[in-house]
Every structure is written in C-alpha cells, then in structure tokens.
C-alpha cells in the first residue's frame, strides 16, 4: 500500500511505509485553483508517484519520489 497525504511526516511517524507527498489537506490529489487540465496533470503525477512507490521495495517508512 502507498499513502498519499499532504502531511507525510505524520503518516511516517504513524508507521506508513510508502508515503507520497500530496498537495493540501483539502485537495490531496490536485489543485482546484489550477485550470482543469493542469489540475488533472498534477493529479496524474501524484498518482504515478504512488504507483511507483507500490513498485518499489522499502524497509521502513519512506517518502517516495520528489514533490
């Protein structure tokens, strides 16, 4: 499992092993302030990062990928 969250330190301290940086608490996957296409592209990058995390072996709580 991979966790997408706006607050990775909290997820990691609670023991989540694959953690991916989201945008904000109210809109973790995307940004409604962006034009719809850009919002969707941002969401896609986040989801792709989470999928990459699923495909990566980790030994302990790890923030996978760049923001």
């Amino acid at each position, binding site marked *: *499992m*991979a*966790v*997408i*969250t*706006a*607050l990775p*330190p*909290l*997820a990691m*301290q*609670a*023991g*989540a*092993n*694959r953690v991916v940086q*989201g945008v*904000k*608490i*109210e*809109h*973790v*996957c*995307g940004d*409604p302030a962006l034009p719809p296409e850009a*919002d*969707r592209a941002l*969401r*896609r990058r*986040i*989801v*792709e990062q*989470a*999928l990459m995390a*699923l*495909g*990566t*072996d*980790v*030994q*302990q709580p790890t923030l996978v990928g760049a923001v």
Partner: protein
Amino acid sequence: MTVLRVAHYINQFFAGLGGEESANRPPERRDGPVGPGRALAGLFKDEGRLVSTLVCGDNFFAERTEAAREAVQAWLQDVSPDLVVAGPAFAAGRYGVACAEVCRIAAEAGRAAVTGLHRENPGLLIYRKAYAVPTADSAVGMAQALGAMVGLGRKLATGAALGPAEVEGYLPRGVRRPGLRERPGAERAVEMLAAKLHGRPFRTELPVDAYEVVPPASAVPDLRAARIGVVTTGAIVPAGNPDHLKRCSETRWARYEIREVETLTGERFECVHGGFYNAMASQNPNLVLPLDVLRDLQREGAIGGLVDFYCTTTGNDQRLVDCKRNGREIAAALRAAGVNGALLVAT
C-alpha cells in the same frame, strides 16, 4: 510573590474566528486572553497574568510549518512569558500537532510549556517530550483540562520539583530517571508474570508504544498486470450519503461501486468529512479519490485494472482501535477482490 507571565496558543476555532473555512488563517497576536484563555486566566487568579494569545489556523500550521514556527519563535521572544500554554487540543489532530510544536519551540527557547491532549492525539508522536495533561476527546472536557494544565504549568514555570508522569498526572514523556525501588527487578518481574498468568491487573514498568511497526509489503512486481484498490479516509460517498457516514468520530467504513465509473463528479458523489473545508472535494471528488487519472492509466495499460469498489471512512477523530479494525476489514475486502496493491489517500 512574582506574577507569572502566561502566553496562550489557540487555533482559529477556539478563537471564535470560524471553523474549517478559516483554517488557513496565518498566525495573529492578541493582547490578553481569547476564548478558553479567559477561563485559563481566571484559574491563575493573582499568581499569573495571561498577557498574550497567538491564534493560528490549523491548516496553516500543518502545511506552512516553517512560517508558523518562525511566528511562534518571534512571539515568544517579544512576549517573554514564564509559561506557555497551548490548547488544550483534545483529540483534534492538526491542532494537537500544532500545540506539541509550540511546546517544542518553547522548550528550545528555554521556556516552560504545557498542553492538553487526548492520549491518542498524534501531537504526542510529533513531540513526545511535551508536558501534556490527558484530556477528554472533545471540548466537553475543557474545565477539567484547564485545571490540570494550570496545576502542572504552575509547577513547571516556578521550577518546583516534578515527580514522574503517573504521580503528577501528565502523559508519559518516554523519560526514565534512575532511582531506587524497594525490591529488586527480578522479584518485581516474577510478580508481574504471576499476576498476568492469573489474569490479575498489574502495571508494566516498560509500556509499549501504541503505534506499532508495520512490516512493509513487498513491491508489486508488475504494475501493468496489477489490480489496484483505492481507499480514502476522506469520506467520499455517493451523493446523499446513503450510509450516513459521520462527519467525525466515525467507527465504521463503507464500500461503493465504481465499476464502469470513469470519473467522480460532484453530481454523483460528495465529501462529508467534517475535519477540513470540504467544498472543493465535494465539487470535484477526484481531488481526494483520483479516479479520473486512474482510469486514464488503466486505459493506457500502466496498471492492469481497478478493484470494482473503493473503500472509505472518515479519518477525523477516529479511535485507534476503530482505525485498526477498519484497516483489517478493508484489507480483507480488497484481498477477497483479488487486489495486488492499494492506494490510500489520507486527508
């Protein structure tokens, strides 16, 4: 007698500035007490004066932590308090984390600080060394919490000798000090073991942390063939909330069909989470449950497919015991549906 200078940290809600719609407010200073600070000031009687209050939105503190930290540092420097009181935050997650951070910043500046947290508040994970009195899970426990915080705070600020957590009534800080017990460890251990075997109550001398280590699952070998399950604590539900998922303090989870659903529209789905400003997620639920791009990736062959339902609960003031049970049940449901990997969006 010196009159203690007391500084108080609270969030936008307790300052009366609004709920989640105001949670992005930056830190602002007020002279004297605000909100629960008035009762706090009263409890100090003539031994302390609440000189300044710092108010900060919960989201601001959580997301712009560096800016918030700097504001707290500058505030403490200007106000120069003998005691910093943060909260109480009860079971509120972001607020509790902010209160724990305020205690950390105060400690770094060499100032006494006290807060009040429910024993499952994640703030205790952020800064375990905080002096926190245990509180109820909601503001119904305000009077009791303030009384306990004042008692402990007064001792901390005046440098009075402080006993161990269980004696003084604050939450354990993970600090062990050398000391003498009347009987050797072997005898105490055997007594504990005997009590355990007989089902009698006993008190451990080495409590285990509530959050356990979860062994990482191995990597999904081939995403292109993998069936992905989607889970969120963001309370995304079909419009009308048919199962009456609660806005907070939920104990259950729910699953909803997404077979042949291409995207989550605001007409068919909504967000009922009560712990953040949810209008944007209700308008476009893909912001929390990113189904639209997952379907794109499925069409392009980047993933094998999606489980035909998604799972959700309200991750807001949920008891740890319910979190664990919900997690177990959701995992079992996904496994029964042949899942290879899961995404959890945590709001």
